[in-house]
């Protein structure tokens, strides 16, 4: 099936101007606000991936950020070291993924919060839509290391993905 015939075209919501997810806000230093912004960063990563926003993905990570993952605790994917390498990985990966993915992150808890760094855990439920059918792909635990930069913006310094089933 050609891309023109395929429905939905991955990232259609951004192309339509519907999902205009931006770069994220700076913290005012309030711990409660920080916790919300840490969650916001995790959600922005999901939006960036699903809408194939390569700049949005770049915004999520520190310059030396790391992305890696494990399928069922055994098969290791990555690591990709540095923002440019992560963007390069995604940019090469997306054209080979024909379905519309939706990364649904839930169950966020934040540990080791210091005011300038934190570690967060979240569940991922990965959904796929293609040719008028929607189905679950996998589920699993994600771990995020985050740091707050000089401008007060929380970014991912290390993302560890975990998937309970192959996909």
């Amino acid at each position, binding site marked *: 099936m050609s891309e023109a015939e395929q429905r939905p075209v991955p990232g259609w919501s951004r192309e339509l101007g519907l999902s205009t997810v931006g770069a994220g806000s700076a913290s005012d230093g309030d711990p409660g606000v920080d916790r919300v912004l840490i969650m916001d960063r995790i959600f922005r990563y999901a939006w960036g991936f699903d809408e194939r926003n390569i700049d949005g993905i770049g915004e999520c990570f520190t310059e030396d950020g790391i992305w890696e993952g494990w399928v069922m605790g055994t098969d290791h994917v990555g690591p990709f070291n540095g923002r440019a390498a992560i963007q390069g990985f995604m940019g090469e990966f997306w054209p080979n993924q024909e379905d519309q993915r939706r990364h649904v992150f839930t169950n966020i808890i934040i540990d080791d919060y210091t005011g300038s760094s934190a570690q967060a855990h979240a569940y991922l439920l990965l959904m796929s839509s293609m040719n008028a059918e929607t189905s679950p792909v996998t589920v699993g*635990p994600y771990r995020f290391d985050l740091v707050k930069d000089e401008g007060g913006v929380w970014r991912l310094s290390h993302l560890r993905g975990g998937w309970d089933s192959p996909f």
Partner: protein
Amino acid sequence: LIPAPAWGFASGDLPLVPATADQADADAQRVLVAERVHAYAWAFDERRRDLLAACFTADAVWHGSFGDGSRVGATRGRDAIVAWLSSYWNRQDDQRRHLITTMQVDALTPTRATVICSLLLLSVRQELSPVLTSFYRVGLQLTDGQWLIDDLFEGGDLAF
């Protein structure tokens, strides 16, 4: 068996730790209440008795009502709740994931809160499949700087 249940913690990839007293101001309390409910789900799925115990007050109650009209519990007391919940781990050879969504924090006072949320329970045994949907109604109290569950009610959409 792939995946081995609780593989995340066993492999060292998921170093969950008990929550500590937080210095966050009052604006953070709503978030911390939500994190406690999330921590309950993580503790069960990663088969962490220590974290499960850390979620409850000593005199907590766990009870539920399910789609077949059955009622479960009440199980009273932290130790009894942990023993009862963890007894399922020997019978469940799949990786369970309790996904908590659609949360609202109600009746938040400086020392008490009530949470209503949805549960999507998933199972992975080679393949991913949904198990059931439920709602949780969770009562929490602030104890020594931590939000702890003192009343957890599950309303399951299917039979228990």
